[in-house]
């Protein structure tokens, strides 16, 4: 049985007494630890509905808290605070303020789909993580994560031309996320490659960087996708009770 409400045993909610005698019995010190009384009154009753309105979150209501997602999670193994089961619980009961404590790491889901593979209820926890990260950004709880910046750079190129060119993606992403492109390890990689790369191959990569690869006759696909994406953005903002983009 997982601990549903970890908040109850967080250090600030735990009370011990240096000197406490109850009914003549000395209960001082750690052996007698009390959980602080608390009253939760700020449930967000619409939280689950809002997450379910975003792509990936549709099946969150199916969860029965078995914990298979967290147990199989790649990121949890690196950072124990990354806990999909717990976040799904918080969303389902509407404990928004508790969820917000972890707002800066939820975007770190690597989409390995181990959770989706393990989930006995087809919750698609990977999708729920994406929907939750998306929700946090739409609601203004977090700035756009680097992952979102990368997704946007990539998607904009695909929608514009039908294809991507990796060099352009890397340059665009580093510019968007205000990081210097001259990273030691990227330079080292380039050096190792340059040492052996056949001249002809180097030429081809250079040409790809200069002349943008594109799918011929892509214009109509581009327009149809752009109009669909616009529709979806409006639908999502409405579901989250957010003003139309550009509205005051």
């Amino acid at each position, binding site marked *: 049985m997982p601990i549903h409400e970890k908040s109850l045993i967080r250090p600030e909610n735990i009370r011990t007494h240096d000197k406490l005698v109850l009914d003549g019995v000395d209960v001082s010190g750690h052996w007698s630890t009390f959980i602080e009384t608390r009253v939760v009154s700020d449930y967000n009753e619409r939280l689950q509905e809002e997450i379910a309105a975003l792509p990936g979150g549709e099946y969150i209501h199916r969860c029965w808290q078995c914990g298979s997602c967290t147990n199989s999670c790649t990121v949890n193994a690196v950072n124990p605070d990354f806990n999909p089961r717990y976040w799904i619980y918080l969303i389902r009961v509407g404990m928004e303020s508790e969820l917000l404590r972890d707002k800066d790491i939820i975007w770190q889901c690597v989409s390995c789909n181990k959770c989706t593979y393990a989930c006995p209820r087809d919750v698609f926890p990977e999708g729920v993580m994406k929907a939750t990260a998306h929700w946090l950004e739409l609601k203004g709880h977090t700035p756009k994560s680097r992952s979102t910046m990368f997704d946007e750079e990539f998607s904009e190129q695909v929608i514009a031309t039908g294809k991507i060119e990796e060099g352009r993606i890397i340059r665009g992403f580093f510019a968007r996320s205000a990081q210097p492109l001259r990273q030691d390890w990227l330079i080292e990689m380039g050096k190792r490659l340059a040492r052996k790369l056949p001249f002809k191959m180097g030429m081809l990569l250079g040409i790809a960087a200069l002349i943008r690869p594109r799918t011929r006759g892509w214009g109509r696909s581009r327009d*149809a996708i752009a109009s669909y994406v616009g529709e979806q953005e409006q639908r999502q903002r409405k579901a989250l009770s957010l003003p139309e983009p550009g509205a005051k």
Partner: protein
Amino acid sequence: MSGPDVKDAKARYRRVAYYPGCALEGTGHAYNRSTKAVGKALGLALDEVPNWNCCGAMEVKNIDPKVQTYLSSRVLSIAANEMHASVVMAPCNGCYHNLKKAEYDLAKDESSREVVGRISEKAGHATYQAGQVETIHALDWIKHGIGEGALRQRVSNSLKGLKVANYYGCMYTRPRHIFPEKDQGPGTESTSQPHFMDDLLEAAGATNVDFPLKTACCGGAHTLSDSDTSTKLVLNILRAAEAAGADVIATECPTCHSGLEMHQVRAEKVLGEKTSVKMLYFTQLLGIALGLSPRNVGVQENVSDGLEALKEKGLV
């Protein structure tokens, strides 16, 4: 749907529509080159899907999953309706995964059908209908199109003595429901313990080491946006391969491959953690076993110095 019958695969896979995808025109160029070279050497023909587009990768899915479904469906539609092909082969795990996912969504989900139909119509091309073509990975293509027996007979430069850790990554097996042909008993691929690459490289003479992280994640989705996590994940994979005694890690995905290469360098530069295992695409290894030159299968295009590992074993 139990998936396509593999019995007549030898005939069906002899000539397939080929979808290289964006990565194989860039960082994964060596995979493209070696896939084509191995196909040629084995008498398997590839017809590139004309005027293809990006499958949507993971990034477009994060913006909107149905746009990714549309993008993949356009590629399938060209293969089915313009090329009249019955099989599309995608060597990249990301492309392969997305085409399979589009196939699944279009078969099962009415709203995906509706959105894809609407965008396809506005875009002015035939809407792809689920079931028109079969999507396969380069591993299926060689495993079922040639088979270990025939492959063994064609090996002229056995990989004998080369210890290989076979790394499949995430997208080739997860989530299970989009791969209805897997987990169907003997002869089919397993989603928990994939073995097609092991089977092929063993037939080419290599020794497969017992590698526990075959389907672990390399953090490819966040390779640049959360590099520290990716470096840790990759380092786990590299260390596990070395602990298992591997000389090389065989890969079958351009994103995994370049992720392992990048973060091997990054682990060395940023964390001071040096590992020496080399990465080669499984098609590069098969090509070497079939007597092709390293240049022919693009070994020089890798960042990782696979040539050194091959020289050490006297394979080149």
